[in-house]
C-alpha cells in the first residue's frame, strides 16, 4: 500500500475562499493565502484550488493568486479555472503551480497541446458527476447532461492526462457520506491515479474509503466548517493503521 494522499480542495471567487453545497450557495470561508499557509504548516499533502471566476472562461486564470501562494508555501499546488490553451497552462506552471486542472474545456486535442508544453504528469482531467436516481451522469457547464459517467471517464483515460479528479456534485459540501461503490467502479476502469471528492461525512467515512482501495481524496467542508485539521485527520488515520505522511 502506498502513502495515502489528503488534498485540500479550495474554491475562490473575487480572491476570497468560498464553500458551497452541491455547487451552489457559496459563502465566504476566509483568505486563500493564509489558509494555504496554515494547511502547509499542518502537513497537507497537496492543495487544489479552483477559481470560480475564471471557471466558465469569464476571466483568464488567476496567476496572481498562484504566485502569492507559492511564495509562501512549498506544498504541491494544482490550479484550475479558465485554462483555455497551452499558453495559459504554461503560465500557471511558471507562476508556481505543479499541475493544472481541466474540466469544462477538457478535450483530447487541448490536452495533447498542453502535454507538449508541460508534460502529461502535470495535467489533471476532471469530471463532475451526479446521480439521477437511476444512473450516474456527467455534470458539465452547470448542467446535468445525459452523458453516462463511466463511458465519459473511459473515454478521457485515453487523453494525455496524468491523473483524474472526480467530484460527486450531489454530495459536494453536504457531508452526507462518500460514494464508495461507484468510486470502486471508476477505479476499476482507470490506469491513472484518481482524486475523489464529495460528501465525506467524518473521519470514519475517510477510513472506509481508504479500506476500499481509494488512495487520494480531496476534502473541503470537512476541514473548512468543522473542528478537524489536517494533522488531526492524518494522526487518526495513522492510529487506524494507514500509511500517511505526518509532519514531524
Amino acid at each position: 500500500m502506498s502513502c495515502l494522499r489528503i488534498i485540500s480542495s479550495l474554491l475562490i471567487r473575487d480572491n476570497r475562499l468560498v464553500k458551497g453545497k452541491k455547487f451552489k450557495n457559496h459563502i465566504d470561508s476566509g483568505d486563500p493565502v493564509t489558509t494555504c499557509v496554515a494547511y502547509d504548516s499542518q502537513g497537507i499533502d497537496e492543495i487544489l484550488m479552483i477559481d470560480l471566476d475564471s471557471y466558465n472562461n469569464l476571466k483568464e486564470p488567476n496567476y496572481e493568486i498562484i504566485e502569492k501562494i507559492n511564495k509562501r508555501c512549498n506544498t504541491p499546488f494544482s490550479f484550475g479555472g479558465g485554462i483555455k490553451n497551452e499558453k495559459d497552462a504554461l503560465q500557471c506552471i511558471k507562476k508556481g503551480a505543479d499541475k493544472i486542472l481541466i474540466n469544462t474545456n477538457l478535450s483530447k486535442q487541448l490536452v495533447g497541446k498542453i502535454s507538449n508544453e508541460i508534460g502529461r504528469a502535470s495535467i489533471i482531467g476532471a469530471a463532475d458527476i451526479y446521480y439521477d436516481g437511476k444512473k450516474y451522469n456527467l455534470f458539465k457547464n452547470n448542467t446535468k447532461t445525459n452523458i453516462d459517467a463511466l463511458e465519459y471517464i473511459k473515454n478521457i483515460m485515453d487523453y494525455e492526462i496524468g491523473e483524474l479528479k472526480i467530484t460527486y456534485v450531489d454530495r459536494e459540501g453536504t457531508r452526507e457520506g462518500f460514494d464508495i461503490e461507484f468510486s470502486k467502479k471508476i477505479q476499476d476502469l482507470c490506469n491513472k491515479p484518481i482524486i475523489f471528492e464529495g460528501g465525506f461525512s467524518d473521519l470514519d467515512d475517510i477510513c472506509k474509503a481508504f479500506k476500499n482501495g481509494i488512495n487520494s481524496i480531496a476534502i473541503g467542508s470537512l476541514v473548512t466548517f468543522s473542528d478537524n485539521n489536517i494533522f488531526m485527520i492524518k494522526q487518526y488515520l495513522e492510529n487506524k493503521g494507514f500509511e500517511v505522511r505526518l509532519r514531524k
Partner: protein
Amino acid sequence: MTLFSNDVAAIDSCKEIKSKDTIILPGVGNAYSVSKFLEKNGYFDEIKEFENKNKKIIGICLGMQMLFKDLNEGGNSKGFGFFSSEVLEISKISKLKTNIGWRKIKSIDKNFLENENYYYFCHSYYVNINDEDYSFLKCVTEENPRIPAIIQKNNIFGLQFHPEKSQKKGIMLIKKFLEF
C-alpha cells in the same frame, strides 16, 4: 518560494550560466520540448562546459532526466548525457501510468541520507538505471516498483522528486546539496 531568493535567480540566456556557482535544472515540462528548446538556445554546450569545470548541477524531476542520454516523452530526444541510462515510460514497471504523491525514499549507498523521509513525486517517466550508472544511484523509493530517486556523480545531483515542494524536509535536502 522565497527562502533562497537572495542567492537564486532565474536565467533568461545560456550566457548567464558561466558566472554562476551552481545551476538548478527545475522540473515540470515535456522532455521533447525542453530538449529542443535547450539545444536551439545553446544550453547544451554551456552546461557541458559548466560541468567540465566541476561546478555543481542539480537536476529536479525532468531536470534530473535531462542529465541522461536518451529521453522518450513526446518522441525521442537527447539529454546532456552525464549518465548513460535511458528514460522510459513508467507504465513499463507500474500499473499506473503516473507516479504522483509522497513516497518514502531510502539510501542504497549507506548513510547518503541519515533518515528515510517522504518527498513529493509527480512524473510519468522514470530512469531505467543500467549497470554503468548503478554505482551512482544513491536512493530509491521504498515501495515497489523501486524508482530511482537520487543519483549523484561528483558534482552532479539528480532528484526525481520535487524537494522544493516537499515542505520542510525538502528544503533541508536542498540546503544539504547546496552545501555538499
